[in-house]
């Protein structure tokens, strides 16, 4: 059973629009949720993360919205730029436990 699910599988937006990437999880003991960004030919890199005690985390144009009751979160990318075109992975882990459970990713394309 997949612990972390992402949708959509792929998403295309125009430059300047807001891209919304969705994620849901199964295990209610998960309390840390990072989003990783991966460009073609590179390894994933941490973009932004949130802990379950918060319902929102902002970092520039990137914002995570977290709904603990529904076990859902989303990544909003405002004023999307062509340089944001990448695959985004949602992940989850439990406290003091190193294992990260990754979703299958959303491939974002930002058209100029």
């Amino acid at each position: 059973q997949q612990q972390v699910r992402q949708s959509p599988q792929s998403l295309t937006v125009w430059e300047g629009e807001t891209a919304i990437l969705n994620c849901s999880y199964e295990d209610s003991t998960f309390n840390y949720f990072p989003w990783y960004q991966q460009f073609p030919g590179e390894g994933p890199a941490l973009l932004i993360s949130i802990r379950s005690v918060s319902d929102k985390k902002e970092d520039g144009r990137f914002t995570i919205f977290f709904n603990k009751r529904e076990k859902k979160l989303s990544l909003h990318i405002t004023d999307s730029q062509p340089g944001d075109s990448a695959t985004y992975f949602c992940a989850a882990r439990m406290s003091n436990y190193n294992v990260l459970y990754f979703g299958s990713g959303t491939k974002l394309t930002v058209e100029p």
Partner: protein
Amino acid sequence: DMKVTQMPRYLIKRMGENVLLECGQDMSHETMYWYRQDPGLGLQLIYISYDVDSNSEGDIPKGYRVSRKKREHFSLILDSAKTNQTSVYFCASSLWGAGGAEQFFGPGTRLTVL
């Protein structure tokens, strides 16, 4: 300079050959990981190492083994490679426990088994 390196970056092997993938990190991280990435499946954990000679199976360990004799170095070994092990392999490292929230990834090794 915080870095995870992987060698080789590209590798082509024939079915039944042995494969050695190498990973190094310069951050003195206790914990290291091997993942494989396949289209539509995200990152799947093969093995996790908590320190030298302290390794645990991940979700898909079958057909793989690992070796960690130095903290900064972690190897993935495929004995008698199979065609379904064709994939992109990523190594990562992190601190242990709560301080290890961020995993740092290497650039990956693209392995093709013919």
